[in-house]
């Protein structure tokens, strides 16, 4: 059975929803949406609800595990959009394009796709990078407070609810929620990997680590953006 053709105004709305769905897909390593990173090379939605998306990456050898995650996540996010009958998401110009595209289309999972070359699915990898993002996010939120004179003693008792609203705070809460770490108003701003509060004496080093983590992620992102720009100049 063919899906009913969508009226032009509705199609425009559907397109908006598809783009918004793509905007929820992160490059886990860079902690940025693939739409902001310019990884979406082309996309379209047909009147009968077929969403076609082609992704691209900064190099031919970008790590296949992260590449697979992004293609699979984009496939899931677009498939879940009401009105999308079918999603076709592919990766262009990559050394593992064929495997990844075939694996995602068949919903084979990472092991099913790469066979003996993979020993585990990618949930753990995703969690590792969410943890990094949640540490870096503490720097993004705490740094302005430190710049305004907050001491380790102040920071030790600062909760998320006491921090002025900001996109960085929203993002930190989302990362923590995804990890099952405390993200409510009463949660401490500074926490260790297991969610426990950071003692006063350890706050200076904790902040150092959080900042280094943020520099690491952001520098990696800048590097990737530079290479993408060069590759698709």
């Amino acid at each position, binding site marked *: 059975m063919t899906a009913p053709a969508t009226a032009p105004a509705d199609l425009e709305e559907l397109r908006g929803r598809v783009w918004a769905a793509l905007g929820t897909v992160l490059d886990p*390593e860079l902690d940025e949406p693939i739409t902001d990173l310019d990884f979406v090379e082309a996309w379209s939605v047909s009147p009968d609800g077929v969403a076609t998306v082609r992704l691209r990456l*900064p*190099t*031919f*050898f970008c*790590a*296949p*595990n992260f590449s697979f995650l992004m293609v699979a996540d984009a496939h899931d996010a677009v498939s879940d959009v009401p009105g999308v009958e079918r999603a076709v998401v592919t990766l262009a110009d990559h*050394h593992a394009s064929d495997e990844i595209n075939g694996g995602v289309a068949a919903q084979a999972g*990472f092991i099913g796709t*790469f066979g003996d*070359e*993979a*020993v*585990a699915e*990618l949930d753990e*990898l995703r969690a590792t990078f969410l943890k*990094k993002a949640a540490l870096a996010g503490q720097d993004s939120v705490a740094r302005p407070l*430190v*710049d305004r004179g*907050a*001491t*380790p003693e102040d*920071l030790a008792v600062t909760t998320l609810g006491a921090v002025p609203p900001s996109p960085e705070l929203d993002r930190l809460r989302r990362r923590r929620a995804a990890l099952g770490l405390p993200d409510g108003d009463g949660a401490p701003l500074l926490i260790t990997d297991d969610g426990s509060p950071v003692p006063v004496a350890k*706050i*200076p*080093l904790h*902040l*150092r*680590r959080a*900042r*280094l*983590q943020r*520099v*690491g992620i*952001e*520098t*990696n992102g*800048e*590097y990737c953006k*530079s*290479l993408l720009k*060069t*590759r698709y100049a």
Partner: protein
Amino acid sequence: MYEKDGEKYFIVDSHSHFWDASRENWKPGQEQYAKGWIDCFYGYHQLGPPETHWDYEKYLKVSPEDFERDMFVEGHVDHAIFQSTYLKEWYTEGFNTIDQNAQLLDKWGDRLIVNGRFDPRDGDAGLKQLEEDVAKYQCKGVKLYTAEWNNGSRGYKLSDPEAYRFLARAQELGIKNVHVHKGPTIWPLDKDAFDVSDVDHAATDFPDLNFIVEHVGLPRIEDFCFMAVQEPNVYAGLSVVIGGLMHARPKFFAKVIGELMFWVGEDKMLFGGDYNIWVPKWQIEGFVDWQMPDDEAFTDYAKLTTATKKKILGLNAAKLYDIPVPAELQLPTTADEPMQPGEELVKDVAGAQA
């Protein structure tokens, strides 16, 4: 040697290549990987200043004359250390083997150091080859690619028992510097080739070897720094950091240098130009002129002194490789000296504002 504003810098380029990525060398059936690899490098190349960009064809393979001009005549380099990168799965004669590098020894033997390599997956034959290479070239260092493909295997860990056997033998043979490629790479599936925890183990178990983490594990610089601060025999190889960031992303270059100065320290950082991804000239001149910006965002980071730059650009590596430095160019550095882990140091100096 490079001289600027009355200061003289002894330059050791700790990371250079003499590769053959010409089409004739692309292994039949593997052309897409051979091309993909050098195309990746060419992408990095273009992160340098536009006036330094080369034509792709020239980039595939340089001549000995190019090397001589770019490194020694125009490039200010006093001594260069060759790192080999075999990639024989994709390049028929290898991408950049020890023998390719050694072609230049006849003319420049007094200024070139050829590092060896090994791959623990090669077993006894590999060990024998290492022994031969060391006998032939008096290697003091090796370059290891833990993510390299080898007969169906897509990588190994430095902490594998077989790797330990090679490290122990290398040490017996007089190797003291182990350069490990932990940076932008090729095939990390769930075996995360950027993961530096294997270096952590090896550095602890081989305290008399120096481990130079090339490209500072760039995609995971935080993992590298957290590890390096606890392992006194771990060094930061700056190739790809200066070349890829100083021109293209100066603010992030500043942050990375600032973090490295804090976590690793100026005695443990080694300049590497990564020829011919980039030529050394603009990197050395730019780094000597460079300073941590005055903006508020960088006030926590240390400024670089002339002594800092001298050590990073050459004196640290000279000490690791026992390269004689003219007396008037010398400065004390703790490079290559046994030290205690630095965790306490960090606790002492780190403040909320630090």
